[in-house]
């Protein structure tokens, strides 16, 4: 009996270990399949046409610059919204709100994170876009700005939860020290707590932006889907098309193995690398912050 017990233990331990390692396997698999289907694009079209400013695959114009610029404009707009609102809400929840308020706000913000992006896109089409069209007197309400507003909302929960964690982990003694020196609560927040939580807040912003770049359905539904090169702030008020929306909109219609198909995978590869870079930087910021905290404590 003891023998079979130790065998069971051995097998279970191995299974658990394999499950732990599977995360690495999946990231590897994802990258591999994106490369496998995306790299042929480079041999089928040369680099200069990929960097062209026209996206019209039906006539073999596969310049991805308009898509990248579209993603940038929408994401930038989203960040302009998500950063102040996200950090403001995080500061309020962690530093100002009374306990009962915190218990209401936290689940509510989490709820926003759980709202399906199609529902937001749906409301964007029906409510936000018509409103913006009339309010800003635009030819169409389906613009980069509409996408930015909604994406900002989608990124807010990410920013709030990470930033709030960072603020929460600032030792209470810091605040008490500042109060003891006669600082107001407000001064303490700006001059002590937020600077102390700087790296965590930065991580929050990066992860929020990462979330916004990768968001698909909402932007596809509300940004008008016009692949034109964004050149300035004015593009916020005209239709654009992002990398994610392009993949989602066109992958369903292309023939497997065609150039168009490979280019779409190539765009996916670019998105994957962007998210990889964002997350590695964000997590190394957290790592460094942790080490510094350990030094302080020891």
């Amino acid at each position: 009996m003891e023998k079979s017990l130790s065998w069971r233990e051995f097998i279970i331990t191995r299974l658990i270990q394999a499950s732990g390692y599977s995360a690495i396997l999946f990231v590897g698999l994802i990258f591999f399949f994106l490369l496998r289907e995306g790299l042929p694009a480079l041999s089928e079209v040369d680099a200069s046409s990929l960097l062209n400013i026209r996206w019209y695959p039906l006539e073999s114009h596969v310049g991805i610059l308009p898509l990248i610029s579209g993603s940038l404009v929408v994401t930038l707009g989203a960040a302009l919204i998500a950063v102040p609102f996200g950090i403001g809400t995080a500061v309020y929840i962690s530093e100002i709100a009374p306990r009962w308020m915190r218990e209401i706000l936290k689940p509510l913000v989490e709820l926003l994170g759980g709202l399906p992006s199609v529902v937001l896109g749906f409301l964007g089409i029906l409510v936000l876009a018509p409103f913006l069209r009339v309010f800003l007197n635009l030819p169409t309400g389906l613009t980069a700005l509409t996408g930015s507003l909604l994406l900002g909302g989608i990124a807010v929960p990410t920013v709030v939860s990470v930033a709030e964690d960072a603020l929460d982990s600032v030792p209470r003694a810091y605040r008490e020290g500042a109060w003891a020196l006669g600082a107001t609560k407000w001064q303490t927040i700006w001059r002590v707590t937020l600077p102390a939580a700087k790296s965590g807040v930065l991580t929050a912003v990066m992860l929020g932006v990462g979330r916004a770049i990768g968001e698909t359905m909402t932007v596809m539904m509300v940004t008008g889907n016009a692949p034109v090169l964004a050149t300035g702030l004015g593009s916020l008020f005209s239709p654009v098309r992002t990398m994610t929306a392009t993949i989602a909109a066109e992958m369903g219609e292309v023939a497997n193995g065609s150039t168009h198909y490979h280019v779409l995978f190539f765009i996916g590869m670019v998105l994957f690398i962007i998210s990889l870079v964002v997350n590695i930087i964000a997590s190394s910021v957290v790592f460094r912050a942790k080490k510094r905290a350990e030094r302080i404590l020891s």
Partner: protein
Amino acid sequence: MMTKFLSRNRHTVQRLGFIAITMVVIVTIIPIIGTIVFILVKGGSAISLEFLSGFPHDGMRAGGILPAIIGTLYLTLGTAVFSVPLGIAAAIYLSEYAKDNQVTRLIRLAIINLAGIPSVVYGLFGLGLFVLFLKFGTSILAASLTLSIMTLPVIISTAEEALRAVPQSFRTVSISLGATRWQTISRIILKEALPGILTGVILGLERAAGETAPILFTGAAFFLPRLPHSVFDATMALPYHLFVISTQVPEMPIQIQYGTALVLLVFVLTMNVIATVIRSRARARRQW
């Protein structure tokens, strides 16, 4: 005199600051509540037994959304089948077995990255691996597998947190009484961490249930006149259906759109509320 002025000044600044930040919070919160209430109100009148239990007809401009509801249930369950055991096992590894070394750091980095990969990229991956390479076709199986991998990081990180919250002393005592590591985990640690794990699982599945992009090319069907028969069939799904009827079908009655959004919202919110309730009840009952 001067200090008095300064002190009044900085308290004014504080008051203004607090007002500003409260406004920020209000502007953040109102759209959340507004969205939910708006859809509940607008969609409420579309809900009927026929809407919930009937098939769509007249090019989806009439009838019900049963196949989409059932499809989302199937996809959520399918996702659970793969991601729950794998995610919990991975969390157990990280919390109970992993040493603090390079490999473990790599695993953590991989999990963080999985959490950050755009959902549409998961769709591409699912298409490349499950639909084409493994030849599952556009199917519930391929879509569930794709959603599983996307859900994994949520489940792993929340479950690991829940496992780590169980006091270390339980482990030491159990081992000292002659238990093996696995006996300790299965008899004590898992039981104590269960509410936290469950919360993570539901939040992960909630995300899977509401996603559209990963299933676009892996398992979602535009329209099916019948329910799927096997895991190799494609399926309708609520989020994709909402996308289709709000962008792809001209002259779609607005009522059906709001009704579909409402059903999806209720589906997702119910999971969210259940998760929140489990978490707060477990916190209240916990004895350590």
